[in-house]
C-alpha cells in the first residue's frame, strides 16, 4: 500500500511541475528588461517591470500606438459587461418559464437548451458572420455582444432552471394567491432568492466573453475594436516578437479569470456537474 502511495505522490509531483512550469516561465519572461532578441532564462537576474508599464501606458516598445493595450482592455471590459447584462436579462425569464410553467413544448425547449449548449459554435462561424454583416453590425460592440451572448445563454438557462425548480412551490403560490403577476414574482421573489447563482453566472458570462477569441476575430476588423486576445495575437505578426511585453499583458489579462475561478470554485464544479453531467 505504501509503495502505491509513494508512486502516486511522485506522479502528482511530476504533474504539478508540468502544469505550472510554463506559467512560471511566462512570469520570468514578463520581467525581462530587453525588448527583443534575448535568450530565455529560468531566473531573471535584473527583473524589471518595464514590460508592464510600457505595455499598458507606453508605445509597447514602438510596436503599437500609445496606450493601445489600455484600449484593448477597455474593449474587453465593455464587451464583457454587455454580454453579462444581456445574458442575465435573457436567461432569467426564460429559465423561469422552463422551470416553473407547464405548457406543451416545455420539454422540447429544455432539450434545445441542452443542444445549443453542447454544439461547438465555431461550426457556424461563416453563416453567423454573414448574418451579423447583413445587420450592419460587424466591427461594432453590439454585434460582438449579441453573438457572444447567444453562446452563453444556454448554459446560464440550464443552471438557473435547475435552481428555480428547487425553490419551494409554497413560497411562489402564496404570492400568486395575493394576485402578483408573473413579472412581479420574478422581480420581487425569484431574483432576491437567487443572488448567488446570479453573481456566479454573471461572472461566468463575463469571463467567457473575456476569453473569447474566434468570434472577436471574425466580427471585428479595426484595431480600435480589438479585445486583448486579438491585440496579443496580432503582435505576433511582426518580424520581432516582443515576448516580454506579450507575457506581461497576458498575465494581467489572466488575473480576472483566475480570481473568478478561486471565488466560485465550489459553485462552478457543482454547477457543471449538475448541468452537463447529471443532466
Amino acid at each position, binding site marked *: 500500500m505504501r509503495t502505491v502511495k509513494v508512486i502516486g505522490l511522485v506522479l*502528482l509531483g511530476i504533474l504539478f511541475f508540468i502544469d505550472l512550469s*510554463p506559467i512560471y516561465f511566462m512570469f520570468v519572461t514578463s520581467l525581462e528588461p530587453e525588448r527583443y532578441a534575448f535568450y530565455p532564462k529560468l531566473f531573471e537576474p535584473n527583473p524589471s517591470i518595464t514590460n508592464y508599464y510600457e505595455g499598458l501606458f507606453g508605445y509597447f516598445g514602438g510596436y503599437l500606438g500609445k496606450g493601445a493595450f489600455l484600449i484593448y482592455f477597455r474593449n474587453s471590459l465593455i464587451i464583457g459587461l454587455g454580454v453579462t447584462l444581456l445574458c442575465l436579462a435573457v436567461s432569467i425569464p426564460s429559465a423561469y418559464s422552463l422551470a416553473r410553467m407547464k405548457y406543451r413544448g416545455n420539454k422540447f425547449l429544455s432539450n434545445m437548451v441542452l443542444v445549443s449548449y453542447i454544439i*461547438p459554435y465555431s461550426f457556424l462561424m461563416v453563416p453567423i458572420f454573414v448574418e451579423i454583416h447583413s445587420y450592419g453590425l460587424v466591427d461594432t460592440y453590439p454585434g460582438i455582444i449579441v453573438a457572444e451572448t447567444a453562446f452563453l*445563454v444556454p448554459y446560464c*438557462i440550464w443552471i438557473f432552471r435547475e435552481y428555480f425548480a428547487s425553490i419551494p412551490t409554497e413560497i411562489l403560490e402564496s404570492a400568486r394567491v395575493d394576485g402578483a403577476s408573473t413579472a412581479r414574482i420574478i422581480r420581487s421573489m425569484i431574483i432576491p432568492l437567487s443572488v448567488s447563482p446570479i453573481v456566479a453566472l454573471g461572472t461566468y458570462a463575463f469571463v467567457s466573453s473575456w476569453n473569447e477569441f*474566434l468570434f472577436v476575430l471574425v466580427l471585428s476588423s479595426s484595431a480600435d475594436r480589438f479585445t486583448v486576445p486579438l491585440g*496579443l495575437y496580432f503582435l505576433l505578426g511582426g518580424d520581432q516578437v516582443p515576448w516580454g511585453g506579450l507575457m506581461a499583458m497576458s498575465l494581467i489579462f489572466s488575473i480576472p479569470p483566475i480570481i473568478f475561478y478561486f471565488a466560485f470554485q465550489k459553485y462552478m464544479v457543482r454547477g457543471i*456537474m449538475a448541468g*452537463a453531467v447529471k443532466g
Partner: protein
Amino acid sequence: MTSNEAETKPKVKETVYGYVLASPFLLFLSMFLLFPLAYEIFMALFSSRLEFVGTEYIRRLLVDPAYVESLLNTALYVGVGVNVKMFLALLLANALNSIDFTGKRLYKALIMIPWVIPVVPSALNFRWMLDADYGIVNQILHNLGIAPVGWLINPHLALGSVIFIHIWTNLPFWSLILLSGLQSIPVDLYDAVKVDGARSWQGFRHLTLPLMRRLYLICTVLSTVWTMGDFGIIWALTKGGPANATQIIATNAYRQAFEFGEFGYAASMFLFVLPILGILVILLLRLLRE
C-alpha cells in the same frame, strides 16, 4: 362545462405566458442556431451569385488535399487528444481521491491554473517556449547536448506538440469533473465491500469502475464534440501550419472563408462533418437522459 373551462383557461394563459417569457431564448435560438444551420446548408448549395451549384462544393472537398488532411488531422487531434486526456484525468482523479497529503486543497486549486488561463496567452507562451531557435525547451536540450527540435515547425512533430498543449490545457477541468463523480459515490458502499474483505483495488474494480463508466462516457463524448470545434488554440499556435500539418476543420474553413473569401466552400467544410456531430449530440442526449 364550467369546471372544464376553469381547468383549460389558466392552461392557455400559462402556455401564452410561458412562451412570452421564453421568447428571448427562442429569439437567440433561432438567430444563432437554427437560422445559421439552415443558412450553412443554403451556402453550401448555392454560389455567392446565388446560382445553384448542388454538390459541386462537396465534390471539390473530396479531391482537395488540404481538406482531406484537415479531416485526418482532426481525427487524430480529437481521437488521441481526448482519449489520452480522459485516461489521464481518470488516473489523476483517482489519485486525488485516494491519496491524502498536506496541502491537497491548495494542490487541487493550483493545478487548475492551465485551464483557467485564457487560451491565447497560453498558446503564445508555448509558442515562445517551443521556439526552435530561442525557446527555453531547446535551450535546456542544448545544455544537455541534444540538438534543437522543431516542436512547432517540423511537420512530423507539430501535431503531437499541439495535442500535448490541448491535454495540458484541458486535463485539469476533466479531472475535477471525474473527481466530483468519484466523491459522489456513497462511502458506505465502500464500507460494505471492506466488510467482505475486499482490497482497495477490488473496491475500485467492483464499485468505482461500474459507477464511473457512465460519467466517463458522457465526459468523453462531450469533450469529443467540443474538441471537434477547437479553433483558437491551434490558430494562435501554428495557424494550421507547417504545410497544413496541424490544419483542423475549423482553422481550414476559417482560412477559406476569411482569407480567400470562399464562403460557400467553407460552409460545406463544416456541413460535411455535421452528421458526425449530430450523431454525437444525439448520443449525448440519450446518455444524459438515462
